[in-house]
């Protein structure tokens, strides 16, 4: 007899598929339609202020999103091997290795790889790796590299750091004006800010709906449906997508529908997904009635740009994102999520590819357990490179954790 289905898929998944297909199709042929319109194509990091580029009519693709896609399609190991053969250490970020592998061997890459960029924009608010990764890309493609250096915020964001980032934002704008031959129109920048904020607000509200018992979403939903907030932020398409998703999730709440049937335990997830096990991994949990009602990662795209001077707001918001913050901030974030979402336990993915996220997790785990009394489990894996994933040890740890939760 087939096992009882405990996981409720979203209808919006089909809309998501269409949205992302359209995005990647337009991106793939961007050179054909974009060039006549004078629209350069940028490769950009997930934490960079894309609103500025959109205001200039620059189209964007996200190698990190593409790395996640390579992970989910389980082609990352082959692409990583290509990068490793070119000299890149297997200990480096698997998104970066996948991306470089796809550049070197597009024939092995999904969709034949990403279309080559006219410029690169990197913001180091998520890690130090992205700068090295984009240096490698700039050397390969021989295109301009724009860097936004957002100093790490150990405690509070200070005015000198904001002023420094602001100066670089102005310099980025000047650089884009030279590159595109167009002046920045403040009305268009405001429109992009509003679109970005609207999508971010909706994404935040969707996440907030998971306060309900039972939760209408499980974390794989959040991971899968975060794609538009990353790659389409600042566009009408992102707003339209999240309006639709919000309506569906709100309807679930109204009807009392659970993402995980018979929700018994409410969990918190920390770190990026294990993309090549995006459903199978979480099935271990949902099969026992455990639902990940919130997470730390997808919330990174739920911070709205504050009102006031738009460029200063942008400098503050992008410098202050959670991955650019110290341990105390991260502990507070988790403690707040545990309290707000009535969480029974948390699972941290010690992700070999993401050192700033992972190296402080054990310290955070100890402090969060101390402050909340809620148990926390760390499992070691990688976000895209399945070669380092050890199925059985992870399963054993997960089972023991769930048995403990059950008291």
């Amino acid at each position: 007899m087939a096992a009882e289905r405990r996981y409720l898929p979203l209808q919006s998944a089909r809309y998501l598929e269409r949205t992302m297909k359209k995005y990647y199709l337009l991106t793939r042929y961007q050179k054909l339609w974009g060039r006549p319109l004078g629209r350069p194509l940028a490769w950009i990091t997930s934490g960079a202020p894309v609103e500025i580029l959109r205001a200039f009519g620059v189209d964007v693709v996200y190698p990190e999103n593409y790395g996640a896609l390579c992970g989910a399609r389980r082609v990352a190991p082959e692409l990583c091997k290509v990068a490793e053969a070119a000299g890149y250490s297997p200990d480096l970020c698997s998104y970066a290795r996948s991306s470089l592998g796809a550049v070197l061997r597009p024939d092995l890459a999904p969709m034949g790889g990403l279309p080559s960029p006219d410029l690169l924009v990197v913001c180091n608010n998520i890690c130090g790796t992205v700068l090295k990764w984009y240096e490698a890309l700039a050397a390969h493609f021989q295109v301009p590299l724009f860097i936004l250096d957002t100093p790490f915020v150990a405690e509070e964001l200070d005015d000198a750091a904001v002023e420094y980032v602001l100066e670089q934002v102005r310099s980025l704008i000047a650089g884009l004006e030279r590159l595109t031959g167009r002046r920045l129109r403040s009305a268009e920048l405001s429109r992009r800010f509003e679109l970005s904020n609207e999508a971010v607000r909706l994404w935040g509200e969707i996440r907030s709906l998971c306060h309900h018992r039972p939760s209408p979403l499980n974390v794989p939903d959040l991971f899968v449906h975060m794609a538009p907030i990353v790659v389409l932020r600042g566009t009408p398409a992102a707003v339209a997508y999240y309006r639709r998703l919000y309506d569906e999730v709100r309807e679930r709440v109204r009807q009392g529908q659970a993402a995980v049937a018979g929700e018994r335990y409410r969990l918190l997830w920390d770190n990026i997904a294990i993309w090549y096990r995006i459903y199978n991994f979480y099935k271990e949990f949902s099969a026992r009635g455990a639902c990940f009602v919130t997470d730390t990662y997808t919330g990174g795209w739920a911070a709205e740009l504050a009102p006031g001077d738009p460029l200063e707001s942008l400098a503050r918001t992008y410098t202050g994102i959670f991955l650019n913050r110290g341990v105390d901030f991260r502990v507070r974030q988790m403690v707040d999520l545990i309290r707000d979402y009535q969480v029974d336990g948390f699972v941290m993915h010690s992700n070999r590819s993401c050192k700033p996220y992972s190296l402080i997790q054990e310290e955070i785990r100890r402090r969060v357990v101390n402050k909340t009394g809620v148990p926390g489990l760390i499992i070691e894996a990688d976000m895209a490179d399945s070669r380092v994933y050890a199925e059985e040890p992870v399963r054993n740890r997960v089972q023991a954790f769930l048995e403990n939760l059950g008291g």
Partner: protein
Amino acid sequence: MTSSIEQAGPVQLLLKVGASGGSGWSRLYPEGPPFGYFCSYWPEELVLSLGWEPYRMLPASANATPGRLPAFCCSLARACLAAAEAGEYRELAGVGFGHTCDTIQSLAGIWPHERTFLLVPPVALQAPGALAYHTAQLASLWRRLAGQAGKEPDPAALRRAIRLTNRIRALAGRLDEMRPRLPSPLVSAILRAGQIMPREAYAAALEAALPELAGAAASPQGRRRLLISGPALENDGLYELLEELGARVVADDTCTGHRHFTGLVAEDEEPLAAIAGRYASIPACPCRFKHLDDRPDHLAALARDREADGVILVVRKYCDPHAWDAVSVAKRLRGEGLPVLVLEMQTATPGEQERTRVQAFLECL
């Protein structure tokens, strides 16, 4: 200092201190605990101006597995954290972290002691506003350190500290010029001593040692001339191996080597801006950015200038910045006809595997 060190001549003194590496700091500082720090981007001048001695944190033992760091983290961070958790650094006047890589950022966040300070210099050293930002961060750090020391920041004391560190840098530069004619482990040990012993004493000892060293310097006759570049090396193991295998390090771009001492702080400018200015002007480490070709250009020029026969790029296991740069730097140097070995090491101490690789590389030169 121990009596045996006190009685030693200047060269012996420097070698003994250098060989002590990361162990036994209390013996070096009988008059009071020094101020520990990680990374050359930590400004020693500020520490000196407040009456402390700067002491570079280097692990005594690299085989450590502290529970609070995962295995995929460099041995330097793991070993230092393990030593800190064991109480080895508890008495230090403070510990300063110059923000460099993701690992140092994380280590600073979980460092177990109070009196921990983090300085976040700009990564893009030549970005608009970088110098002003760096200067402001130095000013803020100086105030915080002064608060810890119970003193007022004193510009005159800072200028004296700048003069002292400049003097040391100039002396280290003279030693570095002699490097091709001196045994490699000797030079690395003396430069390391300059990061872990009281600075006035170091300057005096190095100044006194230079004539003796110049007298002992001899042509490297028949030895393979190497440039090595890499992270912090807490002991002379690699240098000893290279010397044993018939090579000579004629140029050194490691974090604890000459790169630490390169460049001078302008003494006639506002001190904090001048300190920031030095960092902006010296060859960048892989954690910083000036322009795409900055490091390859610098290393290619260094190799040419010192007539290197080959280059060893040392990558400490799990050190992302050096691992990234090894690809582009190796490509560039090979393009200029220089043989390059990318040597991954778990710690600064080479094992048989590293010996075999180095041996094979030297045979190919």
